[in-house]
């Protein structure tokens, strides 16, 4: 087969066009229905952590004391009952997730990814259009303000403007001054998320966790309605908590699993194999 000059020129232009669009097209699509895979940290994520089980979290002494004052009865207060997980923790719970794209109809540029998670149905936006984060005095939300960019096929997301939340749902607090970075990797039908939380108030080192999903073409995320109820008739303003030195669960987890108490009280040192050794 022979190719004349005009055909060569056309082919070169076609190839050049394809090359020019490769950066956008090569970025892997994360859209779809994703079923949570709980092969990591199952006991913490599904049954839930036990009281005074803080190992593996790089908390400081302030976070430890605050966690020891936390009573699960706090969750009986109506104002606490419908709180969703903050976005840095949402993937740890019942986290079947839908991801969908928002595309500009004219330019076909990706404006944002949106996610919805099953438990408490939080919806989140990851802006991909290069916009700035809000000013310091803007409101903080459970899902925070997220912007993303691609590093190869990895979606890197930065989130600020978070409400006060939790590093573990047994009273280990994460402050509203924290920020976090995520990396989303897709490998075929699986997706891995790496979450790196920095909290100047309660963490001494970045707190890093990973979560995984598998694509599920048949997944239907049901609606989630939450209404508060008065579980215990309390005087206005009463806040359940344990006074210093009076947490009744102190040592229970350590004793059950024959762990040293200094281990279950957490801290950066408990993240590393050298501590276990």
């Amino acid at each position, binding site marked *: 087969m022979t190719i004349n000059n005009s055909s060569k020129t056309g082919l070169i232009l076609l190839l050049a066009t394809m090359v020019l669009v490769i950066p956008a097209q090569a970025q892997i699509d994360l859209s779809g229905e994703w079923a949570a895979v709980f092969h990591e940290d199952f006991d913490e994520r599904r049954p839930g952590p036990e009281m005074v089980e803080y190992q593996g979290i790089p908390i*400081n*002494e*302030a*976070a430890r*004391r*605050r966690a020891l*004052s936390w009573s699960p009865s*706090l969750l009986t207060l109506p*104002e*606490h009952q*419908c*709180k*969703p997980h903050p976005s840095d923790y949402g993937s740890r719970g019942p986290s079947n997730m839908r991801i969908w794209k928002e595309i500009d109809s004219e330019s076909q540029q990706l404006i944002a990814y949106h996610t919805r998670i099953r438990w*408490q*149905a*939080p*919806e989140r936006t990851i802006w991909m259009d290069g916009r700035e984060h809000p*000013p*310091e*005095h*803007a*409101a*903080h*939300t*459970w*899902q925070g303000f997220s912007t993303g960019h691609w590093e190869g096929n990895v979606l890197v997301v930065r989130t600020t403007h978070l*409400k*006060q939340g939790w590093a573990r749902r047994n009273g280990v607090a994460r*402050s*509203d*001054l924290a920020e976090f970075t995520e990396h989303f990797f897709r490998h075929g039908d699986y997706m891995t998320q790496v979450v790196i939380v920095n909290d*100047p*108030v*309660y963490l001494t080192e970045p707190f890093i966790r990973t979560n995984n999903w598998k694509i599920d073409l048949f997944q239907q995320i049901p609606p989630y309605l939450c209404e508060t109820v008065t579980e215990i008739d309390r005087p*206005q*303003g*009463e*806040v359940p*908590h344990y*006074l*210093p030195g009076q947490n009744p669960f102190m040592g229970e987890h350590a004793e059950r699993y024959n762990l040293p108490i200094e281990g279950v009280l957490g801290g950066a040192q408990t993240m590393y194999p050298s501590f276990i050794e």
Partner: protein
Amino acid sequence: MSIQLDRFIKRVSTSLSFCLLLFPTISVAQQNFDDVEIQALHVQGNIYMLVGAGGNITLQAGEQGVLIVDTMFAPLSDKIFAAIRSISEKPITYIINTHAHSDHIGGNANLALMGSNIAGGNTIDLFAGTGNQAKVVAHENVMANILVQDNPIAIEGWPTDTYYTPKKDLFFNGEAIMITHQPNAHTDGDSLIFFRRSDVISAGDIFNTTGYPYIDVANGGTLQGVLDGLNNILDMAVPADRQEGGTMIIPGHGRLSDEADVLDYRDMLTIIRDRIAYRIDQGDSLVQVLASEPTYDYDVRYGADSGFWTTRQFVETVYNELSAQ
């Protein structure tokens, strides 16, 4: 009347020495406002939040005019006015003061004189405060508090419309505005202002996101009053779907908030109060209570070792309040 007079006389006697402590620390003379920018943030509905130096300003704008809650410091008035003009061309008709501290009422006179209120015919200029300036609304204890200040704001900024009842209502720009006196909280003249249609509460210094609450004991402030105020805010506020937004709360200082933020702050202060109360019940002295570090787990976020209001002052104030019960 006699009770109010008694309170006023008592306040005069207790406030003078305190003012020497308080007001130099937040005085205008010591501050340079040249670099301060007034930033406007649309909250929702008719409401905006203006942020600069001093207490946050809540702004309501509509067809009838502009209403502002608090006025920051006097040297910022031109910048504040420019920020208002970027939102509305209507006159400033109402100023509501949440309390009497200079970082919240400093610009009263300037901004009141830049405005006008609803008056016409032969009432204009006939009575002070009609027509030619904005009305200034506040609890009567704000007025009493101004009168005892060493260097009070100009008379044009004094309240023209005080209330002494637990509540006062306004209807302005198509919106019900419910003003609630919160007794003995940050001061004894605090007002919570609820913009019912826009679903926004202006909390004054009963709620802030920057530190432990400053309790102005000399002017009738108490921690329990602050807690009562926070609980009242929680009663009024309703979060929206998925607990995001809903009723928005503008704090006296710090960032825009909603119910969950007030809830965390209320929980913290209640826990700290309970810890100190427990130590007092055990017979501990102030020194022993301070040594027990009852605020330790919140200090990195809210505490201060120096400046106008330290953690130690906060704990000492709470200790004194609870010990007296």
